[in-house]
Every structure is written in structure tokens, then in C-alpha cells.
């Protein structure tokens, strides 16, 4: 499969601040590729270089074989963009915005059908200023797709949306990919990356710290699994500590917490079953992308994550 986006050794500084420090990755055709990281990590700067809005200090970028700065006019025809924090004139109607933006492109999509797909057909005569946050977000996705792009770059797709609207938007993006569009997604939501992305680049302080599928990234730090349960009747610790998969057993009141590696869940449950011990309130914690994030970047994504939209430039 050909690479649709190719970024090699990208560098970008603002004065003394290094925003992007030697970032390289490729996005294959039809992929949903996520750029994940805390605010200020350099995600937006990276995609702004890809969009041709900024000039890189060093490095090479190719999108569909085009140079984002030199071939900017050609690139705009095939790259759909959703910007973080970009608005429309308050008094512009939804239908007018779609009609206007579709007139910019050589092969525009049918904007009326697009409005239907995005659940905006009832809002065609509504002014931008009267739309809810979710509707504005859907309109901005529609505008990113109205030129029937081959590649779409979506920056902070679901920031500021309620959980239902977020799930609806995810389903929508999966539909867009199914129609053949390659998607570069910028996000600081782990859940979003886990749900949507085929591959994820984890960026921290301008550098890529890891790049893989979400599950592989999570597995990379999943050296340990944690099993918690209330044994009934009470069980001897030796039953569990004797298992090769188990690394530790601790008690908190009635609760037993077992950590281990490999097939520890199967080992623990079968030894309990053999001894006719029921594991009540059984809970298994597996490393998630979130754990991978913390392990790889050394800080909690929620510390500087949710809701803070400014700061990244």
C-alpha cells in the first residue's frame, strides 16, 4: 500500500521553544492514524506543517506526493481539514457555508447529501451562531469533507462534545474511512484513539515516544495484570503464590489482589475452581492505552488533558 502522508525528521521551533523535535511517520492509504499526546506536545504544530499552514524548520513532508508548501494549491484540492478552534461568521447559514465551501473545489461532494449524513439537513437554514457545540463540530467535519478529499486531517475532533455526541462522531468517522478517505486524527483522548485508530503515534515534548497499534502499545506495558476478588470461603495465599504466573499476592481486608504475568487469569481461576473457592466481585485490570501513555511519557494525560484547548500552537 502506498504511503499517503510521509513525514521525515520534522523540526519546528518558535523562538527558543522547540515544538516539534525530529518527528517521522508515514500514514498508509485508508488508515486512521492517530497523533496522541498531552496539550503542548507538538501535535497541532505537526499537522499544521502537513496542512501547509506552517513551514517546517527542517525535514520533509509529502502528502499524496505533494509538498504542502510548494504545491499548496494542489494539496488544498485533495486534503480536507478540520482546524482546532476555527469558527464561521455568526450570521452564515449552515447551507450557505456548505454551498460556499463546495464552490471552492474542482470535484466537490454533494453537500446536501453530506448534510444529511451528518444530521444537519434540518439545520440548513440555521445560522452558525445558533448551532450547539455538537452541531458546529459536525458542520466543521462536513466542511472538511465537502471537497471530497482523499485525506482528512481532523484536529481535536470531539473536544467539547458530550459523550453521546462523541460516540456519534466516532461512528461517523468510521463511515468516512469506509468510503476510502485516509484520516489523520489529532487527539488527547485515549478512548478516542483506542476506538478509532489503526495506528497511533504517541507524542510528548515534540518527540514521538511510541508508535504502534493501540492494542500493541497497551500490550507493551502490560507486563502486569491485576486481579482482585473476594474469595469465598477464604483461601490460603499459598494456593496462589505457588503459581508460576503470579508475582505477588496482597490482602486488603477480605479482598485479595493478585498481580502476575502471562496467563495469570486462567491460572488463578482454575486453581480457585479446583479448590471450590468462589471469586466474588472479580475484577481484572488490563493495561490500556492510557497506562501505556503514562508509562511512556511519565505523566498522566488527565493532568493537562481534558478541556484545556488553548496552549497548543
Amino acid at each position: 500500500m502506498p504511503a499517503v502522508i510521509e513525514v521525515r525528521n520534522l523540526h519546528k521551533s518558535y523562538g527558543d521553544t522547540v515544538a516539534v523535535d525530529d518527528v517521522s511517520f508515514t500514514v498508509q492509504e485508508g488508515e486512521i492514524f492517530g497523533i496522541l499526546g498531552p496539550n503542548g506536545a507538538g501535535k497541532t504544530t505537526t499537522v499544521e506543517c502537513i496542512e501547509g499552514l506552517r513551514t517546517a524548520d527542517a525535514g520533509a513532508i509529502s502528502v499524496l506526493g505533494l509538498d504542502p508548501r510548494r504545491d499548496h494549491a494542489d494539496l488544498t484540492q485533495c486534503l480536507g481539514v478540520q482546524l482546532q478552534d476555527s469558527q464561521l461568521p455568526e450570521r452564515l447559514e449552515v447551507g450557505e457555508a456548505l454551498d460556499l465551501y463546495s464552490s471552492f473545489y474542482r470535484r466537490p461532494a454533494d453537500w446536501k447529501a453530506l448534510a444529511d449524513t451528518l444530521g444537519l439537513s434540518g439545520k440548513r437554514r440555521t445560522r452558525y451562531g445558533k448551532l450547539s457545540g455538537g452541531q458546529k463540530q459536525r458542520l466543521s467535519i462536513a466542511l472538511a469533507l465537502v471537497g471530497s478529499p482523499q485525506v482528512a486531517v481532523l484536529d481535536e475532533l470531539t473536544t467539547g462534545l458530550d459523550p453521546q455526541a462523541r460516540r456519534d462522531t466516532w461512528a461517523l468517522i468510521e463511515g468516512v474511512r469506509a468510503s476510502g478517505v485516509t484520516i489523520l486524527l489529532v487527539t488527547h483522548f485515549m478512548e478516542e484513539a483506542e476506538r478509532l485508530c489503526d495506528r497511533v503515534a504517541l507524542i510528548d515534548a515534540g518527540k514521538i515516544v511510541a508508535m504502534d497499534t493501540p492494542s500493541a502499545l497497551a500490550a507493551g506495558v502490560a507486563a502486569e495484570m491485576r486481579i482482585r476478588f473476594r474469595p469465598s470461603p477464604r483461601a490460603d495465599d499459598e494456593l496462589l503464590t505457588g503459581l508460576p504466573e503470579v508475582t505477588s499476592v496482597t490482602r486488603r481486608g477480605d479482598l485479595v489482589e493478585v498481580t502476575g504475568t502471562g496467563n495469570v487469569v486462567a491460572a488463578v481461576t482454575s486453581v480457585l475452581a479446583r479448590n471450590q473457592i468462589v471469586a466474588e466481585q472479580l475484577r481484572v485490570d488490563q493495561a490500556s492505552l492510557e497506562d501505556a501513555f503514562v508509562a511512556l511519557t511519565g505523566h498522566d494525560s488527565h493532568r493537562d488533558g481534558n478541556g484545556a484547548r488553548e496552549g497548543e500552537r
Partner: protein
Amino acid sequence: MPSSAQTMPTAPVAPPGPPGPVGAALRRLTVTELKLFGRERGGVIWGVGFPLLLLVIFGNIPGFRTPVSKSAHGVSILDAYVPILIAFVLAMFALNALPAALAGYREKGILRRLATTPAGPGRVLAAQLAVNVAVVVVTLVLLVGVARLAFGVALPRQAAGFALAVLLTIGALFGLGLLIAAVVPTGRAANATGAILFFPMMFFAGLWLPIAAMPPVLQHVSHATPLGAAAQSLTDAWEGHWPHPLQLLALAAYGLVFILGAVRLFRWE
């Protein structure tokens, strides 16, 4: 998806199509901006209605319509005010409407968003300029028409000189408006800057005190300001003289400097 996707990356998309959409985009943007201007009720009332209202008020003050006997041309106070009102209209749009709109567009990321489309942000700037100049011209025609038909104010006697003065004034004032839009950070700041410049500039245009009635020092200062030079040139042409070349030159120079400054300093984001 278009078949060109399969031949990537050796053959990028973008068949060398005609530059048709470029002109079409500008036309569509201009029509859209015109619609938006119409919806901005404040802008219509303030920019178009207010000067007409001033004209009607002045026209209904009985003393304003009788020729001042001392004057060589037998002009009335109203006759003398119409060119000043014209300068007023031009300044309203150039210093208030245009910079606020453009700085607001930049602040809201609309210019950045357009930079990622084939239309580009320059076109929305051009569309804004076109709409403002068009509305200004329509307002001037209305103003002169109402003055002529309702209050018997004569049309400009030196028509060519008047047209040239209007043109140069548009260049100088809209250039200044673009310069304001270039340097202020937000739409609000543009509004404030426009207003702060507007009132002293209108003073030197003789809105409150006719230039001829100013002390000599103020008259000199007035002729050196963009709006003072504009008002004086418009008045001269109205009364049948060719505007003073020095004032036309001053307007042209202001226009050049402001536009060059705006081009150098304009930021898209």
C-alpha cells in the same frame, strides 16, 4: 473515491483543471459577504442610515438651506455639509466596518480555515473590500441623490475632480482601514482603534467646525490629515474648482503608505 487515488504517489491528484473555480470562488465569497453585511443590521443602520439621517436633519433646519450671503458662490450651510457627510460615510466604512470585520475573521480562525481551501484567505479579504467599497458607493449615490432631490443641493460642479477626490479618499481611508486590520489583535481592538481615529479625523474634516472657520494653525493641520485633505478636495470639487494638487497628492501618498504598510504587516492568524 476518484481513481487517481490508486496511482499515488507518483501521479498526484489535481488534474490541471481550468482556473475557473478561482474566479467563481471570489464571486461566491463576495455574494456571501454582501448577504452577511445585509444581516448585520447595525452596520446597515449605522453606515447607510445615519449619514442620511444627518442629511435630513440638517436639511430641515431652515437656516441651513438659505445661501450664506457672504459666500462667493451663494452656498448654503447644507451645501457645505454634504461633502463633509461624504467624507464621513467613507470614514465610517473604512475605519469602522472593514477593520472590525477583517480582524474578527482572523480572530475567529476564518482566515486560517480558508488558507486550507483552494480559495485562500486573500479572496475573502478582496471580497470584504469589494463589498465595503460597493456599499459605500451606493450610500454616496443615495446621499447625493437625496440632497439633490429633497433639499435642492446642486450636484458637484467639477464632476471629474470630484470623482478623482472620492477615488483617492477611498484609497487613503480604506488603506488605513486595512492597516488597522493588519496590526490589531482582535475585532474588538479594531473597533476601538477605528473609533479612536474616527473622531479626531472627523474633527479635522470639519464635521463640528467647518475647516474655513478654524484658526489658521488648525486649518494647516487639517489639510495635512487624510480626512481634512479629503473634505477640502471634495468641497473644492463640489463648488466647481479643481481640487488643490497638494491635497490630492497628500491623499495619494497616504493611500500608498497605508496600503504598503498593511501589505507588509498583515497577519493571517
